[in-house]
């Protein structure tokens, strides 16, 4: 609340200057630009004070009371209490006042305490020392004194005090590593790049001599978007203009890793940082029960008012005879006789309100709140969810959503990291049809299958040999892995056989797995030094490649490339990506063999990547360089231009081979899914993986069974038929069958139920979701929903993060308004988790250590995502991270096998009842604590 207030005030205050400007200009180090430059209008920016607390000492009582009485129930009881105080009522004001004040006081104490903690945290943050660069010297100041334009130095493992433009780092290549675990939950390291022209300024004196201005957009909450421009002035010539992107922006809340120190200039401070903006914009989740109970409350209020009204009228009708109004034995006082009739009627009306106010019981509110509170404790107390390795049990973010857990009808789960362990293991690679399996040692365990497949010396010819080595080099070079030299990284994967300890760090575990796998095949990636990538080949020689460009990975292209220059001066473009994005761009190579291998691997549930290359001559490279430079410099539409450039560059490739990485299923994932399906809960898997892999995983976890009839809405199919036809056909199959099913079940004839599973990919989904030209998009959506409703399992593959949220939203607002639950890990699921009624986040603490740790975060309040892990509410399912909401349900599989009353009930009764039965299951295995339904929130 406060934040918005501050912002609106700010806006109002600065309206004169800022309304017309949608970008801001920052003077680095507060140095005025040279007179020749454009005249900039100065802006007022807030200081770097973070205010996450709601109250101050002075406004606590009024503001807290105001907030509490905004709740409809509290307000109602307050009104009743006041009426009782004012008029002469039949019941004493104490009867309604006492419970009300009990509730108010307890809540106020709780909120006050929480706010006090927040104050403490705030002031700790605001007062923590920050190194400023002033007049060429380092000065320690409190963080809140930081202003836009200040130059700041941050050391390793410190968090950034505000949003900074990365000027230079202690690393020679001008990069730094950052973990944003407390911002978006991704614990992997990300690489950020210093501005090219300033990365040479390594000391305070240097940096102080920098003369530059930065133009950037107004503060925006999107964490991954930033567009700006830096003008570096030097005495000699015109200012150098460089584009700034999100890779140059270091966000407040992120932590510097593996870099000794960096310099940056503050662009957004305080409440304008992206973290703070994210903090403000979300509202708290409320349980569906609470919402509906508020409606009931209003209905009852209406009943109450009309009751009081009728009674007042009847009273006056009754006492219209004088001997009833005032018999001799019951005389009125003089004052009563003279009181205004209307006033009398009104007080009578109020008195009736008070008399009947028990129609809305205050005690229920108190009881319910207590029970929810206790219920959340039962979750935290649960031994089954306690993880012994980390010594942490589950923590409940909010007790408001307990009762929703028992009513969940749809479970949306992410595949990677949730159903599977996200613990990648290099399985094999295939070069031109020859299959290589890395040397049988994998973390000290001998792979049993290793002996049966062709080994490296299946002796291709000389040309084959060359291709093979090129493939290994490509895998070794085409990645964004950082090498961490010391052994104190959290969650490093130690390379088994290199002499010195080194660990690979990457945002994608696949890459690490690949590079490690290749290491076992003889090629070791050593490090990136001075823009040269070093690797050790089989003969133990060190090869050096100059890294020219990185065409980084994005989820739309689904591939990445590097352009390197070998020691002999040859320029290569290596490209690695999903098969669907590589094959169309390949002009040469043994496509068919590799494709068949890839498909086989995909069916086995392996994650496959294809590797291709292209040899460039110098002129070509120069063209590419210009193209990229132009795209990168664009201030507007940079992303689109970059994508176009990438598109142009990554073509006419020569296919080298493919890799396969295994991501094993979580223990008991299959049991869990089965139990959930038995309970009639629909499980949807939303994944970014390719269809075959995802489908294989779904079979493995028994989401699809042998007799499940698969329906596909995929891009491939849509190429043959129009979307309309496909949907109509599918809905005919499904609906016809379900119709016959219901008939049969009544006559007792149907032998077994036909299961349907739907597979849809991202592209098809966006077609369905896309509004039509004539605005009749709802048709497809309805049709799609109809199909989905009749499928026991749905698999959505190739999904972008936003699409995941779209799907959840689609179901959430379908006409039955089912309760949804989303589980996921990492950043790409956050939107989905926030969208669903109940969100569970399982953070893989250490993605690359063999500790299958699941953290479940019941999110209600996205802010928690922005807080450090320790404050988050983590539900741990320790020894067996069964993927499901309730690792609970998984055991149900064992306990219920013989007669399954659950199953029977489910088919007869409404979804709500099914929820109740899930509840039974949950309770049976003591995993979920006491969940209460039909509750209200005080």
């Amino acid at each position, binding site marked *: 609340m406060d934040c918005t207030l501050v912002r609106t005030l700010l806006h109002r205050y600065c309206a004169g200057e800022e309304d017309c400007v949608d970008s801001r200009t920052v003077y680095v180090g507060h140095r005025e630009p040279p007179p020749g430059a454009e005249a900039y209008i100065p802006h007022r920016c807030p200081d770097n004070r973070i205010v996450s607390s709601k109250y101050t000492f002075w406004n606590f009582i009024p503001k807290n009371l105001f907030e509490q009485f905004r709740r409809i129930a509290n307000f109602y009881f307050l009104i009743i209490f006041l009426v009782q105080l004012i008029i002469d009522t039949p019941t004493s004001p104490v009867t309604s006042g006492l419970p009300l004040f009990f509730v108010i006081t307890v809540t106020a104490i709780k909120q006050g305490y929480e706010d006090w903690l927040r104050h403490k945290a705030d002031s700790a943050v605001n007062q923590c020392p920050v190194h400023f660069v002033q007049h060429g010297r380092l000065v320690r100041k409190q963080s809140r004194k930081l202003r836009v334009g200040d130059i700041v130095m941050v050391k390793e493992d410190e968090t950034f005090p505000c949003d900074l433009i990365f000027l230079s780092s202690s690393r020679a290549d001008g990069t730094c590593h950052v973990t944003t675990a407390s911002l978006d939950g991704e614990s992997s390291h990300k690489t950020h790049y210093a501005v090219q022209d300033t990365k040479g300024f390594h000391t305070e004196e240097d940096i102080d001599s920098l003369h530059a201005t930065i133009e950037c957009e107004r503060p925006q909450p999107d964490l991954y978007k930033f567009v700006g421009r830096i003008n570096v002035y030097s005495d000699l010539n015109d200012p150098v203009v460089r584009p700034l992107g999100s890779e140059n922006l270091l966000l407040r809340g992120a932590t510097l890793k593996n870099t000794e120190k960096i310099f940056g200039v503050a662009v957004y401070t305080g409440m304008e940082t992206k973290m703070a903006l994210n903090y403000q914009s979300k509202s708290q989740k409320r349980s569906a029960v609470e919402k509906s109970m508020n409606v009931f409350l209003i209905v009852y209020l209406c009943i109450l008012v009309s009751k009081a009204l009728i009674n007042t009228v009847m009273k006056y009708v009754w006492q219209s005879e004088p001997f009833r109004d005032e018999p001799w034995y019951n005389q009125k006082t003089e004052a009563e006789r003279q009181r205004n009739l209307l006033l009398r009627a009104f007080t009578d009306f109020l008195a009736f309100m008070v008399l009947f106010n028990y129609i809305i019981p205050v005690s229920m509110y108190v009881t319910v709140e207590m029970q929810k509170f206790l219920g959340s404790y039962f979750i*935290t107390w649960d031994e089954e969810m306690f993880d012994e390795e980390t010594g942490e*049990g589950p923590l409940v973010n909010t007790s408001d959503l307990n009762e929703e857990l028992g009513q969940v009808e749809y479970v949306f789960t992410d595949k990677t990291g949730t159903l599977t362990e996200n613990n990648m293991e290099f399985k094999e690679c295939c070069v031109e049809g020859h299959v290589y399996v890395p040397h049988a040692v994998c973390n000290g365990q001998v792979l049993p299958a290793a002996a049966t497949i062709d080994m490296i010396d299946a002796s291709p010819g000389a040309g084959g040999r060359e291709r093979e080595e090129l493939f290994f080099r490509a895998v070794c070079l085409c990645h964004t892995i950082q090498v961490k030299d010391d052994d104190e990284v959290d969650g490093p994967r130690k390379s088994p056989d290199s002499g010195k300890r080194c660990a690979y760090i990457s945002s994608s575990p696949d890459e690490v797995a690949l590079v490690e796998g290749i290491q076992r095949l003889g090629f070791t990636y050593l490090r990136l030094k001075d823009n040269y990538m070093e690797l050790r080949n089989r003969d133990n020689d060190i090869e050096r490649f100059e890294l020219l460009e990185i065409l980084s990975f994005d989820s739309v292209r689904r591939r990445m490339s590097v352009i390197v220059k070998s020691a002999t001066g040859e320029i290569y473009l290596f490209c690695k990506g999903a098969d669907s994005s590589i094959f169309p761009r390949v002009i040469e190579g043994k496509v068919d063999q590799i494709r068949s291998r890839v498909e086989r691997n995909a069916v086995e549930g392996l994650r496959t990547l294809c590797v291709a290359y292209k040899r460039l001559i110098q002129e070509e490279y120069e063209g590419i360089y210009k193209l990229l430079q132009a795209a990168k410099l664009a201030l507007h539409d940079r992303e689109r231009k970059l994508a176009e450039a990438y598109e142009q560059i990554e073509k006419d490739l020569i296919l080298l081979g493919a890799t396969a990485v295994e991501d094993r299923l979580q223990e008991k994932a299959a049991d869990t899914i089965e139990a959930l399906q038995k309970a009639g809960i629909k499980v949807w898997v939303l994944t970014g993986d390719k269809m075959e892999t995802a489908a294989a995983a779904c079979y493995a976890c028994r989401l699809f069974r042998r007799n499940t009839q698969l329906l596909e809405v995929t891009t491939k199919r849509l190429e043959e038929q129009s979307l309309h036809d496909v949907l109509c056909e599918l809905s005919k199959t499904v609906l016809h069958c379900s119709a016959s099913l219901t008939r049969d079940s009544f006559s007792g004839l*149907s032998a077994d139920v036909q299961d349907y599973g739907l597979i849809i990919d991202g592209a098809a989904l966006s077609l369905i979701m896309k509004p039509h030209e004539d605005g009749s998009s709802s048709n497809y959506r309805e049709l799609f929903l109809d199909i989905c409703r009749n499928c026991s399992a749905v698999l959505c593959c190739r999904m972008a993060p936003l699409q995941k949220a779209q799907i959840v939203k689609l179901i959430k607002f379908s006409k039955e308004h089912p309760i949804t639950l989303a589980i996921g890990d990492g950043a790409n699921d956050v939107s989905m988790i926030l969208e669903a009624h109940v969100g569970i986040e399982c953070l893989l603490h250490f993605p690359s250590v063999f500790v299958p740790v699941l953290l479940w975060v019941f999110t209600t309040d996205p802010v928690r995502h922005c807080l450090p892990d320790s404050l988050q509410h983590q539900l741990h399912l320790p020894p067996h991270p069964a993927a499901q909401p309730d690792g609970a349900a998984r055991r149900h599989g064992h306990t219920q096998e013989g007669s399954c009353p659950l199953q029977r009930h489910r088919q007869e009764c409404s979804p709500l009842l099914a929820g109740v039965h899930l509840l039974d299951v949950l309770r049976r295995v003591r995993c979920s*604590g006491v969940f209460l339904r039909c509750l209200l929130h005080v």
Partner: protein
Amino acid sequence: MTWSATARGAHQPDNTAFTQQRLPAWQPLLSASITLPLFFCAGLAFIGLGLGLYYSSNGIKELEYDYTGDPGTGNCSVCAAAGQGRAPPPRCSCAWYFSLPEFFQGPVYLYYELTNFYQNNRRYGVSRDDAQLSGLQSALRHPVNECYPYQYSAAGLPIAPCGAIANSLFNDSFSLWHQRLPGGPYVEVPLDRTGIAWWTDYHVKFRNPPLVNGSLALAFQGTAPPPSWHRPVYELSPDPNNTGFINQDFVVWMRTAALPTFRKLYARIRQGNYSAGLPRGTYRVNITYNYPVRVFGGHKLINFSSISWMGGKNPFLGIAYLVVGSLCILTGFVMLVVYIRYQDQNDDDEDDE
């Protein structure tokens, strides 16, 4: 929420039956074989109880006479006409003659009954001072404001007992005479007027103020009787244990009725020859007619009644039990029919799965 983070932290949860939800619990599965017998048993039990209550209530004899004095209804109409429009009405006596053809099984209770009298009116119901009635000296001099307009007399003296309830004390009196033989003399039947109030009311709630020089009258000096009263409170009865605030008629009246038609106990007949009941013969009730009821459309009745183990005559309770019991059995039958009718289908459905 921070509390959970701070409260639990990284500690191993306790392994107790409570925290791990292993407390013994009963989760009934309500199937037809349990529910149907339950309904029938409950229904039968209710019907049995209802029949018992109904017949014992019916066995109670009652004899009632409306002596309000509507024109042409006996000799009390004279008194009613005489008292019309005058308050307080003059003393007037009338009588009610009745004859018992057979023995009236005792113990017999004599009630008076008023109709259309709203003792449950809120303004009326709060118009009393319990502190004063419990004998507090200070409250005697300073009655609470609720008593207004019966708080202070016109002369400014505090009214004792104050309030509308006390002011409207029922002040008719009855005596019962028995003529054993036709034409014989009427013999007075002794009425026991002492054991008619609640024990707690008489011994705890109502107390006289401390005597001054051994005199109750002096204790009440400086107070005024309620305006409708003819005599002060300390002269309600010559018996020192039955006068002042602990006069039993007064105590009975002060326990207000919940409904506008109510009965209050006037006396018990349990002395002499009449302890077993009222023998055959002709009776006369002498009524002192004081209390005005016609101004508010009410009636007053005199009522003889015996009691049984379940109290006074009250057919409602028995009827309610009978109705609920029969509903139970009816529901049971309906469910039985549904169960038998659809049982087979259920089995089929189960076979399907």
